[in-house]
């Protein structure tokens, strides 16, 4: 028996995976199941079922919050119930869970998938290669296929009330020897940038940390979250890593992305590629960012950012 098993440690991502798996199931056949952490209450279970999940498996006792434990539980459910397509949310945790599940089931695995589809009966998975320059479509030839899909890769479908079953199971967990001593939540973070409707991205064109308030003022006028390129988080540490946009940072899908002082190297632009409209400001008219922009303004950001801010403020009055 074939079937699709979805897992994410984040409920909302699990629903995205389920939304797409509903279509996938018609090609793959079999059931659509989800592995959930903790016993789902009626509301949580109802949400999963309304997005197409037939069966929700929950580990008893609770599965400890550890990638290796998640991976062992997923592998056991897949083996026992014959799920051959395993779809996981490609968060940091999800990526390593996917890799470990694949290793233990002898499966091929593609992480950070941006899309998937069935063509002539073959499941094709898209992911970026060469730092984001290209998108590879690949098939997985192993009997079990493991795919970790990016958060937001699949739109949330329309929920339709449906009945499903909740099945408890007792995973055999082998301790991996890694102990969590402390978990400290990151403080003071606003909307995650990957969920922002409007995004203002800032790059090395910003000459001084003192100038960040100027950018914040424009972001406020645009009701945008601030994202940035890698050097601003890693080399200069002006912004927390959670604001890095790009291949090793966040992939964002805003309605509007305004790019300021960013040259536009592929490792960054891969993170804004899904924006509906991109407006870019750079003083170098040959900057590659203009090739990915809908609107490009060749100008000095220090001249135009304050002026644009005023114009945006005037609009919202």
């Amino acid at each position, binding site marked *: 028996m074939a079937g699709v098993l979805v897992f994410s440690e984040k409920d909302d991502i699990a629903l995205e995976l389920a939304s797409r798996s509903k279509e996938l199931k018609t090609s793959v056949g079999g059931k659509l199941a989800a592995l959930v952490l903790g016993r789902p209450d009626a509301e949580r279970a109802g949400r999963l079922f309304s997005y197409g999940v037939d069966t929700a498996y929950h580990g008893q006792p609770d599965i400890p919050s550890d990638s290796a434990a998640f991976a062992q539980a997923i592998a056991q459910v897949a083996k026992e119930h014959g799920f051959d397509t395993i779809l996981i949310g490609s968060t940091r945790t999800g990526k390593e869970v996917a890799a470990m599940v*694949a*290793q233990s089931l002898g499966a091929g695995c593609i992480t950070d998938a941006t899309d998937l589809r069935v063509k002539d009966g073959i499941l094709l998975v898209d992911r970026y*290669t*060469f730092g984001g320059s290209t998108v590879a*479509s690949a098939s997985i030839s192993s009997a079990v296929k493991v795919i970790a899909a990016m958060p937001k890769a699949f739109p949330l479908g329309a929920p339709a009330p449906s009945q499903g079953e909740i099945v408890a199971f007792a995973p055999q967990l082998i301790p991996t020897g890694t102990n969590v001593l402390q978990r400290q939540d990151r403080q003071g973070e606003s909307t995650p940038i990957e969920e922002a409707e409007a995004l203002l991205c800032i790059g090395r064109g910003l000459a001084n940390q003192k100038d960040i308030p100027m950018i914040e003022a424009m972001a406020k006028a645009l009701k945008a979250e601030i994202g940035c390129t890698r050097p601003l988080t890693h080399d200069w540490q002006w912004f927390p890593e959670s604001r890095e946009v790009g291949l090793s940072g966040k992939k964002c899908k805003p309605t509007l992305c305004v790019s300021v002082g960013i040259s536009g190297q592929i490792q960054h632009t891969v993170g804004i590629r899904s924006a509906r409209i991109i407006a870019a400001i750079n003083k170098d008219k040959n900057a590659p960012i203009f090739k990915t922009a809908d609107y490009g303004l060749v100008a000095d950001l220090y001249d135009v950012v304050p002026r644009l801010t005023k114009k945006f403020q005037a609009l919202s009055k």
Partner: protein
Amino acid sequence: MDIIVCIKQVPDLQQIRIKKETREAVTEGVPFLFGEMDKNALEEAVKIKEKSGGKVTVLSIGSQKLRDTVKEALAAGADEARIMVDAAYDTLDSGPKVSLLGAAIRKIGQFDLIFLGEGSADNYSGQTGPRLAHTLKLPLLSYVKQFEASNGMARAVRNMEQSLETVEAKMPAVVTITSGINQPRIPSLMQILRASKKPIIEWKPADIGVAVDLPSQRQISVVSNLAPVEQRKGIILEGAVEENLDTLVNSLVKEGVLRS
């Protein structure tokens, strides 16, 4: 402390061009280098060696140019290198690659830590570290932004999306390193010259007890690999600034992307 650092050579991404007609990536003639996170992993290992002694061995699997690329790692402080070279190795998928790495690590035998970057610079797939930990049955400390080892224990701060986690495990352990952890050194001319005397040992699969032809065990087949079609308007505003600012704002209003 003996540390194995697994590094991957990747084509210099800045130099990859896209063929306009076919949208294919042109990699011919593009030089190879190590990814930034690989350099961070190596730097962390070398720092530990400088503090508490031991040896840093670089392990790498790749195509023809690998011997040259590995010299960079020796110049940056590694003591010796084990390499496996085959034209097919650059595109090996994670499963078969980990079979090779695992066998090579068992052959090296003596080690306290295995370091890797959290992902490679070209694909950032992030599978090698977790798969390696699983196959070697070793604890995994991943996405590490702070690391220390003492009295047989490895202790690390993991950089997760919403939290920082302090974790520990008994050594030997597999550790994947994030880029914030350190600033990799730039080797001096003397170090580069000295690196040429450091041993680079090349192994064939038979040397490490691998009998099967791993490239043929491929589980991932790439059907197409093309640059995405950019469907951008490409309206460039140059010259009269005030006029351009109004044009830009009006355009964004018309697009309906400004939220009032």
